């Protein structure tokens, strides 16, 4: 891949992106365009793999899930509806679901208790905060996260980056189920407004 394209790729999440967007590419992929899929791979593989790695952790399993997800993007691109959201959101939503599925099925196979017992409730959030630091996109996310209440932030991040179900999050934080549901929703709404996300 040419140097210039690689540079563009690293900028892909900024609004000033040049060249075909993930949306353009995914629309072409839906028509069976393999060259477009190759370019789409270069545009989205970093965030897809990064998210899987973050949730699944294990390198070998992450690589497996990554290949499954990228193939699913190819296979189901025909079902992408640009009117219902961006290609990036569609792909990362799919990615997150597959990563969480992997974590949950692995969890069902081992002892639930073990995993919960190893967790110190204070730790995951600090770790996540460190992770969400660095580049431009990350700085914006971090800035917006700082506008959330502690409970909102921890509810959203524990579910999203650790792949916990809301009853698991409620148990970790020691708050009722109903509370964790509303904190997740309120937290995401606050993030949405801060980031200026439209559906």
């Amino acid at each position, binding site marked *: 891949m040419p140097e210039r394209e690689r540079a563009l790729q690293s900028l892909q999440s900024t609004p000033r992106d040049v060249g075909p967007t993930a949306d353009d590419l995914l629309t072409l992929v839906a028509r069976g365009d393999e060259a477009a*899929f190759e370019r789409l791979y270069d545009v989205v593989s970093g965030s897809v793999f990064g998210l899987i790695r973050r949730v699944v952790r294990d390198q070998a399993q992450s690589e497996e899930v990554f290949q499954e997800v990228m193939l699913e993007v190819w296979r189901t691109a025909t079902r992408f509806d640009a009117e219902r959201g961006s290609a990036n959101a569609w792909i990362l939503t799919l990615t997150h679901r597959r990563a969480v599925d992997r974590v949950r099925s692995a969890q069902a196979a081992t002892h639930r208790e073990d995993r919960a017992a190893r967790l110190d409730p204070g730790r995951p959030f600090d770790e996540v905060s460190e992770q969400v630091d660095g580049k431009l996109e990350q700085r914006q996310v971090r800035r917006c996260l700082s506008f959330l209440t502690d409970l909102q932030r921890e509810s959203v991040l524990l*579910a999203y980056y650790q792949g916990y179900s809301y009853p698991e999050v409620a148990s970790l934080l020691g708050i009722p189920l109903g509370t964790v549901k509303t904190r997740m929703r309120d937290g995401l709404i606050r993030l949405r407004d801060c980031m200026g996300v439209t559906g």
Partner: protein
Amino acid sequence: MRTTSADLHTLTGAYAVNALSDTERAAFEAHLGGCGSCSQEVAELAATAARLGAAVESPPPPQLRARVLAAAAETRQVSPHVPKIADRRRLRWAGGLLAAACLAAVVVVTVQNVETSDERRLAQLSSEYSRFSDLLSTPDAKLISGTAPNGATGTAVVSASRDEALFLAKNLPQPADGKTYQLWLIGADGERSAGLVVPGSGPSVVTGLAGTERVALTVEPAGGSEKPTTVPVMSMSIV
């Protein structure tokens, strides 16, 4: 329905970060189909969550690129959806059926909230639920509802072409100790048991409807009876 819709609505956040169980996810997605404002909110919150995903970017090992592209070259893509042409009669039905789907969703979600640990029961509910939405999609699906003096409501979806019906009760009080609810199919040939009904559980699936005129719910001694021994608390004509 007002409070239950509101309850479902608060799940938009948990749904967007995949924090629901499979059962709740299915129930919530059924609700989404008929709730425009929920769909909009879910789309926005999912896009917001995706930004959290984009923030933890990390390149995959380079050798995976060729592997993925080669696999794609050998994989057939799924066929695109074709929009269905709906006629007015079907559309009118859709309103009522949607209400029933919503009711089913509420039943499943309520049970899930109370009993998150009972995985086997949930798996069963999940399969009953998909059976329900499947039945709702048959062209001759009929929706029938009834009310009991104690405030419980019953909803039945009947499909003659499938020879199948689903019955579900909402706000059904717990029966007294040693008692149970039992569902009956009543026709010219008499009554036939359609199984016990546990308050707050998923829909009852009933097959073999030939000759059935009414569906009735009675209170029976624990374990159920051969024939109804009390006056029905609820009775609905299905013809």
